[in-house]
């Protein structure tokens, strides 16, 4: 398969909660092997969008196709080829890392070996430690290890670095970049612009259930410079995605 062919196709995806439309008929494609960022403030619809693609929520309209399978028609096929790290998953605190890995491995037909996976996630030393005793970064790496246990084609990471200290974030960035090296496709949501800028090949800026821009980080920034160049050049700092977002929505990313 060519590197540019889409592995995820989203068409007219819509979700309503209690009468309010939180995702408003969005379309986008994710290419095989890229890190695709969903960027936006809280409540922009990032998580809902991801969960509809993962098959965890039923869309009220539109379709999502992952690796050729429609998430509404062949959900079980989709589940076999994706790995998911949810925003607010807690794991069984009283189990050890190894035990919880074995448990998740048992859900799949052809799971990966646990030891090499633990090594990649820098968790080998914690193999027999209980989840309860892990640090925030270690828990998050375990969550990613679990998402990788079926050797998936597409990995969904929902705000993987939220609440982590700077060092733990860097460690996680390295891990995510290594996934890309291995040819995995990563869909990542975040509200940190620096994270999106470092990790993502392309960024989908979302606000209030709509896509406001979709491009590479560089293109987004240079487009902004072209539009409002002089203003920003007066600044000593480099303009970044935060500026892009503010200029497009008039609001800051971290508001709300």
């Amino acid at each position: 398969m060519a590197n540019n062919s889409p592995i995820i196709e989203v068409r007219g995806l819509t979700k309503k909660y209690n009468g309010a439309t939180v995702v408003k008929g969005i379309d986008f494609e994710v290419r095989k092997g890229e890190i695709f960022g969903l960027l936006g403030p809280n409540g922009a619809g990032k998580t809902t969008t991801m969960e509809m693609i993962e098959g965890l929520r039923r869309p009220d309209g539109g379709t999502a196709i992952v690796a050729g399978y429609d998430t509404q028609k062949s959900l079980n096929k989709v589940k076999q080829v994706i790995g998911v790290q949810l925003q607010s998953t807690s794991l069984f605190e009283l189990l050890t890392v190894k035990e919880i890995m074995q448990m998740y491995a048992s859900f799949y037909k052809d799971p990966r070996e646990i030891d090499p996976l633990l090594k990649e996630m820098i968790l080998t030393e914690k193999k027999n430690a209980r989840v309860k005793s892990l640090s925030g970064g270690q828990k998050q790496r375990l969550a990613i290890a679990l998402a990788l246990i079926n050797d998936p084609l597409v990995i969904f990471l929902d705000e993987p670095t939220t609440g982590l200290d700077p060092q733990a974030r860097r460690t996680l960035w390295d891990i995510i970049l290594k996934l890309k090296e291995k040819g995995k496709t990563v869909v990542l949501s975040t509200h940190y612009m620096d994270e999106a800028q470092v990790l993502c090949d392309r960024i989908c800026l979302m606000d209030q259930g709509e896509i406001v821009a979709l491009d590479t980080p560089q293109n987004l920034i240079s487009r902004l410079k072209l539009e409002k160049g002089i203003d920003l050049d007066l600044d000593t700092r480099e303009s970044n995605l935060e500026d892009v977002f503010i200029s497009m929505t008039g609001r800051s990313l971290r508001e709300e």
Partner: protein
Amino acid sequence: MSLKAYWQLTLAQLRIFARNRQVIFFSLLFPILLMLMLGSFLGSSGGNISLQAYVIDGDESTASQQLIDTIGQQGIIEVVEPPVTVTDLNGALERLKNGDVQLIVEIPEGYGQSLEAAAAEAAGGSGGAEAGSQPPAGVNVYYDETRMTTAQVGLTVINQVIDGISKSLTGYEPVLAVNPEGVQGVQLEYIDFLVPGIVAMMIMSNNLNGVAGQIASWRERGILRRMQSTPLHASTFISAQITARLLLNGFQALIVLLVGYLFFETQVNGSWALLVMFVVLGTLTFIAMGFIIAGLAKTPESAGPIAGMISFPLLFLGGVFFPISNMPELLQPIVKLLPIAHLSTALRQVMNVGADLTMLWPETLLLLGWMAVSFIVASFTFKWE
């Protein structure tokens, strides 16, 4: 359903249980404390099954008085004086029907004489074989057929007394040892009533609260959602939950039974296998109900109160602490449909009376019915999120 996933989930749940020492400790401590408290306070203070009897002595001889005393000495039947308004057998029978007494023993006129005659014949007779040729002196015992258990206890005691008297008269040498357990077996104390009730209570509350609370909390914390994003089937997850709960809660119930048996001398007159069967049946029924509550509860905080709202009245209505027959007439038909009532009755019948399956099929069927209906409802109400 994947066997590998089923096994791993069961194992995970058992590990979580085993590592949650506090839960295990308190869920065992509570019933044992309850046993200790209620058992020692109420167990000795006249909580015994008591049987009151009128004796209508139509003979008024030394022999008849001896019979009355012997019956009283057994310690099970209390011979009481009928009120003065009761003058004849018919009056006494009215009292029996009203439940004021449980037995009426009527000693006919000529009882003493016929005993003497029998004794004389036995002493002077040519052989033991002819000793019984004299028609035996008849003692009439009236009992309430609607209270078979009490009646049977009373009849056993009186039979034993009469039997003893006839044997002593005829100079009968026992060739076979008499097995005294038959009578001791029904000499029940409150603890014998209490322990099966406590076990039934434990089975109900551990499973209702345990399943509902845990599932609702796992749902809230996103643990179920994470599993939902894997190819795992809900049926595999539920089966594993049931297996692990059954092992753990069944085991806990058995520990409490054993504590009662070993330290409080609770009788187990029936088969342990049957007892285990009812523990299993009860556990499954209440697990299923726990799943229903977990499905209804919107938050883990509401799961506890919902489970409590169901289990608390059941504790009082279900014959856990007080016999169902003590309940108001109006409530009886409802009470008799409750699963906890059947579980406690079944456990009690097996332990106290030594009932077997042929006697307990109504309880078994009703529990099976509750279990089946609950599982069907649970399978419709279960949701991952």
